[in-house]
């Protein structure tokens, strides 16, 4: 399953524009008009965690912080709530990066679930302190679904880096 674990396949260097594109696309996904947002995975968080694990030197903590602020403003929630969660998640992903990449996809998924749940718990705690009421346990369904998406997502997002370096023009496919 872990066809792109380290040592098995050398990936091309990532295109920074592709990182930007995935982040913006994930933001779009997040601001879609969902009817009930509790069970909708926070795709932006997953994408941030993905790049913070894969490219800790490109996606540090500053970019997630700014994206979190944009999410806060777009959703009209407490300014800093997503920023806090995203920076902590990016920090965890950055520091655990080498460890996580050592594992195969199932174990990676478990790690990512832990990171995402930490972020969700942080946001939950912040809102509880700010005086909101409990939104129901389906609030924690989002990270579960997001973590379940991890194998698919990491396959898709690494696809541009798995292209052959020199394309053979005469190849049939």
């Amino acid at each position, binding site marked *: 399953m872990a066809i792109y674990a380290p040592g098995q396949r050398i990936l091309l260097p990532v295109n920074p524009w592709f990182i930007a594109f995935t982040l913006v696309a994930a933001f*779009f996904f997040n*601001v*879609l008009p969902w009817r009930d947002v509790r069970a909708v995975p926070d795709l932006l968080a997953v994408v941030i965690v993905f790049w913070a694990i894969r490219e800790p030197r490109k996606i540090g903590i500053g970019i997630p912080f700014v994206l979190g602020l944009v999410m806060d403003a*777009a959703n*009209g929630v407490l300014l800093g709530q997503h920023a806090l969660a995203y920076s902590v998640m990016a*920090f965890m992903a950055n520091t655990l990066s080498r460890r996580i990449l050592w594992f195969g996809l199932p174990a990676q998924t478990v790690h990512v679930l832990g990171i995402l749940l930490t972020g969700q718990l942080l946001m939950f705690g912040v809102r509880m302190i700010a005086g909101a*009421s409990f*939104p129901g346990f389906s609030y924690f369904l989002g990270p579960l679904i997001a973590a379940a998406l991890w194998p698919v997502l990491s396959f898709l997002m690494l696809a541009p880096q798995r292209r052959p370096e020199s394309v053979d023009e005469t190849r049939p496919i």
Partner: protein
Amino acid sequence: MEHAPPPFFNRGPAPVVRVTFFVLLSVFLMVIDARFRYTEPLRQVLMTAAYPLQRAVLAPFEAAGRIGDYFQSLADLQTENAELRTEKLKAAQDLMTLEAVRAENARLRGLLDARDRARSDAVFAEIIYGSRDPFARRVVIDKGFTQGIDLGRPVIDTAGVVGQVTRVTPLASEVTLITHKDHSIPVQVVRNGLRAIAYGTSDGAAMELRHLPINIDVQNDDELITSGIDGVYPQGLPVGKVTRVDRDATFSFARILVTPLAGTDRQRQVLVLRPLEEAPPYPAAEEPAKKPAKGKKARRSEG
């Protein structure tokens, strides 16, 4: 004499330092946002910047809706047309009586030398999306302060009161629904004129009439309208219907649940009204408060 390592090993501050900085920064932002509201300009800049992106995201859905409308079957339209025609007839009858009643009202008001209630000019708006915040019930509408929306305006739809404008940006504004936990609205029972305050509940689906005694005269299916005594909501807008009354003698108060009439899940068009021009003067609660102050002054001057 240079003993520093070459700059390509330099990765800036340690990650722990950086995350501490950003965590402290976000906590700082949250505190000043929640307590002092100093962050409104920053929020407005971010929201206005994100607005075109959000509209771009929504465009395909709106287009799909329009295409769906276009291909709506003729039969549907015909039945709808017939319904509308009968409704129009009924409304015409109401309108005629309304004209008579309005004239009579104006005469009576003239007699009473009362101020004519200002007819509120309304702004038509459309709900763009529901706020992606599972903790709070809010919707965002497509009119902002460039279209004349300001804070505190009541918002209604065809069925009843939707909520109140609580945040305004140049092109969009945020409406807190009447079912929001921290929202309350003064209401009146149509059947007997009883006044009460309907509070939002934490689950965000219903409202509650609090602090009413157990033997209060409220029944199931009682209709509630705004009483207009808060100076925000004009009088007589339908709010909701009582769906449950628990009279449990072990509690001091009756538990009365109200289901709102307005349906933000069902329809997208809303009207943003102007709040009442002049809030009624506050009742004379200052009189007893003045006396001890006077006494204190007197005592101070004595001593």
